[in-house]
Every structure is written in structure tokens, then in C-alpha cells.
């Protein structure tokens, strides 16, 4: 029984913190916010070199055979830095491929992802933004040996830079998961700009996009289980990133409360501020416990592995919202300026609140499992 990180996990965390502080300070984040593409090729290649992109892949396919705990460690640090880029969607697509793909699909994509040559994403949502895989509305019609996909996918993370899109679509036999390359005909992308410019989304329109017979991931018509599997990992990944963003907001607030003086003393000396900071720490520590418990449960195949990710997502979504919001309040006016970095982290957490199932979505999943 040990909840603490192993020494290897601790080293990974320290290395990620240090690397991101050097290569992705807020000046870099802000430059990428202003960039049309929104992410950095150099940074991506460096992440590949550090082994971050293939972290969870088998060693034979260029990976490090690590798990969700290590992935969450990295994502927490990316949240702490508000690092822009398609890390989480690429990891999710990679996990699905590593779990369910044919040998040919694996050798086509896993080494490419691990070496930073390919970015990937998952197009979970149709226009009604329903996270239940059963709600998939995009259609797959049989054309010869393959299929043609038609529909509109919304809020596809980093679709404009993806070399591979995992697209759930409904065929006669049920929902299948298709591997779609952006060069296919009938695909159009239009950007959706949210408040976090370090997270880029796109509307992806599919108009009879041809996919070959060998471009289905896993059993045809059986993808809803795989999508649930993937959403649980997305929920934990998002929780980790929100945790990092919240911890950054807490750190900034505590540092500020020690130096900002009003009424002749540091504002941190006032209980009104000190108690807020204490409540923020409580939320962050509980969010840590929720996130890493869920990551561990997935890695260990614990009996509550299907439940713990929902608990993490619902808890951390709300905790991060509170912590980041209170951080602005502790700062006062300066926390409302574009100049001050606080909003970078607050917006990252906000963007992830709505992704991979919001708090309400996961509360319903929890109720289904425990209130029967």
C-alpha cells in the first residue's frame, strides 16, 4: 500500500516540471496563443525525444510501456504550464490503437506517433455534443468493400494539425471506429476558437469520406465499448491537466498573498484571504488523490476501474473551477488583466471541464453504477 509516486515517477515529474519551465514559460504559451497553428513543431519533436509521446506504448513499438499514472504525471505538468498542443488527444488515439489495432495498423501508426511524426485525435462528438457513444450520429455507408462517412463532428481537438483522426460513425451493424487521414476527399475543417487559445478545436465536416475496409479500428459495429474505455482515459487525462492548472493558480495566489500589501500588511495575513487559500489547497490535494487513484485503478485493473475515472472527472472539474476562480478573487484587479498569467491556467481548466464528459455526465455514470 503506497499512494506516493515511485522514485521513477517522481523523477519523471521533476524532469517534466523543469523542462516545461524552460521550454514552455508563459511567454512561449502566449506566443503560441497568437500563432495560427497554435503549437510548436520543435516542442513536439523534443517531447518525442524525451519519450513522452510513446510513454504508454509497448517497447517494441517505440514506447516505454508505462501507464496512466505516468501519463497523468505529464499531463498535470502540462496543465501547470498551460502548455499548448495536441498531447492528450494524441495519447488517447494512440492508446486506442495500442489496445485494439491490427498489426498493420499498429506498425503504421504507433512508431509514427512515438517519434513525433504523427499527431492524432479522436472525434467523439456530433453537433448535439452528447458524450454517450450510443448518440453517435455520423453515418457510415457501405461502398464496395469500404465505407463512406457522412456527418459533422464538433469540438475535435487539434484536428487541423492531426495526421490521423479516429472517427466514430454509425453503420448498419452499429457504431464503428474509423481511422481517417486528413488527406481523404470530402473532409473540411473549420476552426472553433474557445477562450483557451492553447486548446484548439475544429468542426470537421465529412461528406462521403471514403475509408478502406482495413481502416476500422477493432470489431465493426462494436465501438461503443471501446469509446467508453477511451473516454475513461480521456476523463483521467483531463482531470490531471485540470489538477495542474489548479495547482498553478494556487501557487500563484499564495505567492501573491505573501507580497501584496493592503491596509499596511500582506493580504495573506487576513483570514478572509488565508482561509480561501487553505480551501484551495484542500481542493487541490483532494483533486490529486482523485486523479491518481483513478489513473492507478486503470493501470491496475482495479475492481472500480470503470467508476474511478468518473469520480475523478466530476470531482476535479468542480475543484479546478473553484480553485481557479478563487485565484482571480485573491489577486483582485491584477488577476483580471490579460497581462497577468493567471487566466492562462484558468482557461485551460475551463476548456477541459467540458471535455470527455462534463461533471453532470459523469455523475449520471456514477449513479448508474452505485445507485441500483
Amino acid at each position, binding site marked *: *500500500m503506497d*499512494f506516493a509516486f*515511485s522514485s521513477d515517477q517522481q523523477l519523471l515529474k521533476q524532469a517534466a516540471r523543469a523542462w516545461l519551465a524552460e521550454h514552455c514559460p508563459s511567454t512561449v504559451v502566449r506566443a503560441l496563443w497568437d500563432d495560427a497553428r497554435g503549437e510548436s513543431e520543435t516542442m513536439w519533436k523534443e517531447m518525442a525525444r524525451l519519450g513522452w509521446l510513446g510513454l504508454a506504448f509497448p517497447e517494441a513499438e517505440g514506447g516505454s510501456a508505462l501507464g496512466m499514472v505516468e501519463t497523468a504525471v505529464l499531463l498535470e505538468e502540462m496543465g501547470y504550464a498551460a502548455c499548448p498542443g495536441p498531447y492528450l488527444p494524441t495519447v488517447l488515439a494512440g492508446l486506442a490503437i495500442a489496445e485494439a489495432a491490427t498489426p498493420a495498423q499498429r506498425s503504421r501508426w504507433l512508431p509514427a506517433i512515438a517519434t513525433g511524426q504523427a499527431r492524432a485525435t479522436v472525434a467523439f462528438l456530433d453537433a448535439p455534443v452528447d458524450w454517450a457513444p450510443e448518440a453517435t450520429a455520423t453515418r457510415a455507408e457501405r461502398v464496395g468493400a469500404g465505407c463512406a462517412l457522412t456527418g459533422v463532428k464538433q469540438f475535435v481537438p487539434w484536428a487541423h494539425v492531426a495526421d490521423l483522426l479516429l472517427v466514430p460513425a454509425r453503420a448498419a451493424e452499429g457504431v464503428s471506429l474509423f481511422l481517417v487521414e486528413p488527406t481523404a476527399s470530402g473532409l473540411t475543417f473549420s476552426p472553433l476558437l474557445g477562450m483557451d487559445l492553447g486548446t484548439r478545436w475544429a468542426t470537421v465536416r465529412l461528406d462521403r469520406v471514403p475509408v478502406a475496409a482495413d481502416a476500422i479500428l477493432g470489431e465493426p459495429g462494436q465501438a461503443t465499448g471501446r469509446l467508453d474505455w477511451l473516454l475513461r482515459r480521456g476523463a483521467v487525462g483531463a482531470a490531471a491537466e485540470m489538477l495542474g492548472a489548479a495547482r498553478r493558480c494556487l501557487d500563484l495566489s499564495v505567492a501573491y498573498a505573501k507580497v501584496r500589501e493592503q491596509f499596511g500588511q500582506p493580504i495573506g495575513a*487576513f483570514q478572509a484571504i488565508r482561509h480561501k*487559500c*487553505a480551501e484551495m489547497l484542500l481542493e487541490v490535494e483532494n483533486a490529486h*488523490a482523485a486523479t491518481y487513484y483513478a489513473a492507478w485503478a486503470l493501470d491496475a485493473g482495479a475492481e472500480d476501474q470503470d467508476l474511478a475515472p468518473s469520480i475523478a472527472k466530476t470531482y476535479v472539474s468542480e475543484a479546478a473551477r473553484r480553485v481557479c476562480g478563487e485565484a482571480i478573487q485573491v489577486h483582485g484587479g491584477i488577476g483580471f488583466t490579460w497581462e497577468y498569467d493567471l487566466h492562462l491556467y484558468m482557461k485551460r481548466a475551463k476548456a477541459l471541464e467540458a471535455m470527455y464528459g462534463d461533471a453532470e455526465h459523469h455523475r449520471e455514470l456514477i*449513479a448508474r453504477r452505485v445507485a*441500483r
Partner: protein
Amino acid sequence: MDLTYSPDDLAFRDATRRWLEANLPRGELKTLEERKAWHRQLYDAGYLGMGWPREYGGQDAGPLRQAIVADEMARVNAPPPINGLGISIVGPTIVVHGTEAQKRRYLRKILTAEELWCQLYSEPNAGSDLASLRTRAEDRGDHVVVNGQKIWTSGGAGADWGLLLARTDPTVPKHKGISCFLLHMRQPGVEVRPLRQITGSAHFSEVFMTDARAEKADLIGRLGQGWEIAQTTLSYERGGNSLARVTRYKAAFHQLVQAAKTLTRGGRPLLDDPLVRSRIGRIYAELEVQRYAALRVLSALDKGESPGPASSITKLSYSEFEKRYHELALEILGPWGQLTAGVPWEFLEIATSSGEPGTWAHAFLWSRAGTIYAGSSEIQKNVIGERVLGLPKEVRADRLKA
């Protein structure tokens, strides 16, 4: 990270479970003698004072083993040991700060419940500001004479001894003039009056000391060291009970789900109402997060790490959660949640560790105590702010004077 129990711990858990199945008292323990006998039985089986040194009757067991026992007891709603305060607070204080003679004299009788203990800390005018306590202990050579009043004394009515904080030097700053004594409760100068709390029963007492006598040989630590000692006793055992607490919440949760299936609104079970489902999902998430946090603290304690002021986070977290939990329960239960006796359905009976009737109403009322006792939520936030986050201390009137 590895959150599985070792095979040894699993075997220990199973053995504990079997022992409880075989020995759990059938029916309620009514008399003091029955409760003492149950305490003694737990001790003889090796389930009390587990973390104490072997030479004083303990087993040098780690916090995880203690937590497993507490958790298994919660699972079957076993009655708590009657000398709980002696086991969790007084004994460890004597182990850490007591003389050899004090250890020989007192520890074993705590373990066997031959002598029951209470804690004489809070006063009518010294609650959160405990260091301003006014009970005096005047030096008379081989003993001190104690005058003053204590309040919120758990188990005061049955106690043979009390762990007392009293002022021995009024001329020095308030934190430095306090000493810690063991006070015999069965003497003419000590009067114990029951204090009825909002649940209707009297779990606590007021204790009036009029020229009561405490021996100098029963001074714990040095004269003037009392505040420091009190600081350490308040942080004992935060963690050991945390899993057990969650186990009780969970048992109650399943009762609540039963209620939500049975009670209806507009002709449909409450459990079909999306709003109720959302709130049930949310509270269950909070409940589980309490468990994860407990595992985190416990595994650190088991490695010998001291949580120090961070234990304030644990206390703040669970006590505030308990209030939210019981507010929600009473909303779901409607008027059934108000009943204090005579409940018609099994799901209206819940396990408690307070010894009171297991109704939701009692549990709800008790949830108001947790954020006040052992350092209120406001005090915990001060501790977290100052000692964990390193925020500046506030300007305080008593510090200015000192």
C-alpha cells in the same frame, strides 16, 4: 503507486473479520460493565493500543494495521471501545511525554479499561483560543491545588482520570504558563455535571474543580510544557480512523439509495429524478475522494512519515464533507429524515459511532459537531494557511500584548 494490500495485510484483515464475526456482541451493550468487558475482549484479542510499544502492552503495529481493524469494526458496526479517549489520546501522550513511573502506573489500566479517562481541555472562555484557559493549578510542594471549570468533556461522567491542562504560571505569556497533569476524577473537589447537546442526550460533561488535588508525580513533561504537549496530542490518530469513517459513510449511502427508490415524487421514485441522481452521483464522488485521501494519508503514516500540520487538511475535509452529506440525506428523506425514534423502514436506521440511536436525524445533528471539536474549521484553515502554505501570521491583539 500501489494501492493494493500486501498478502500479510490481507491475511490480517481476514483474521480480524473472522474474529469479529465470532465475537461481535449480539444486541446492544447496555451497562458499563458490558461495555468494559467488550473493550477488554478487544484488547485481549490484540485490537487495541496496537501502535503502543510492546513493553507497555502494545504491539508496535503500524498505522495500516490499526486502520484495518477500525475499518473492519465499522464494517460490522461493532461498538467502539469504552476507553476510546484513553486509547487514542491519553495513552499516546503518556507514551511520548510521561516518566517511566507514569507509564508503569497508567498505561496497562488504560488498555484494559480498568481506569477510564477523559480530557480536560476546553473551558467556557477558552474554545478555539484554548491557550487562554483560566483553570489554575497552584504549587503546594508535592501536589498542586486545582480550581476552575472545564466543558465539552467527552465521557466525563464515567471517567476515573482526566488529562488536565491548567495554568501554573500566570505571569508569563499565555502559551508558556500552561502545564499538563493527570487528575484523579473520583475526589471531593471534582464535580461532573452532564451537558446536554443538541441531539438531546449528554455525551459531554462540564467539570467543576474546587480545591481539587493533583500530585506533582502526575505532572506530564515539565512545568510550562503543557501547550506543547497539547499540540502533539491533538494531532494523534488523525488517519487511523479515516478508512473506518468512509466505511460508515458508505453503509449509510446504500441506505440512502434504498430511500430514494422507495420514496416518490409525482408518482415516480426519487431515484428516477435527474436532479436527485445528479446529487447522489456527486455526493458519492465526494465520499470516494475521502477514501482516496484517507489511503494517501495512511500510506504516508505507515512509512513513518509524520503528516504534521497537513493533518489539518484531512480534518477539515472530512468534517465539512459530513455536513454536506447529511444535509443532502435529509433533503432526500423529507420528513422521514426528522425522526429520532420509531423508524418504520430499515433504510432509516444507520450505523453510528456515537452510541446514540442510529437515525438520520441524530447523524445530521452530530455532523454539526465535527467542524467545531478538535480545532474548528476556521482554526484548521489558520493552521493550513500559516504552517502549510507559509502565509504571514495575522496581527493578533493577544500577540501585541505579549
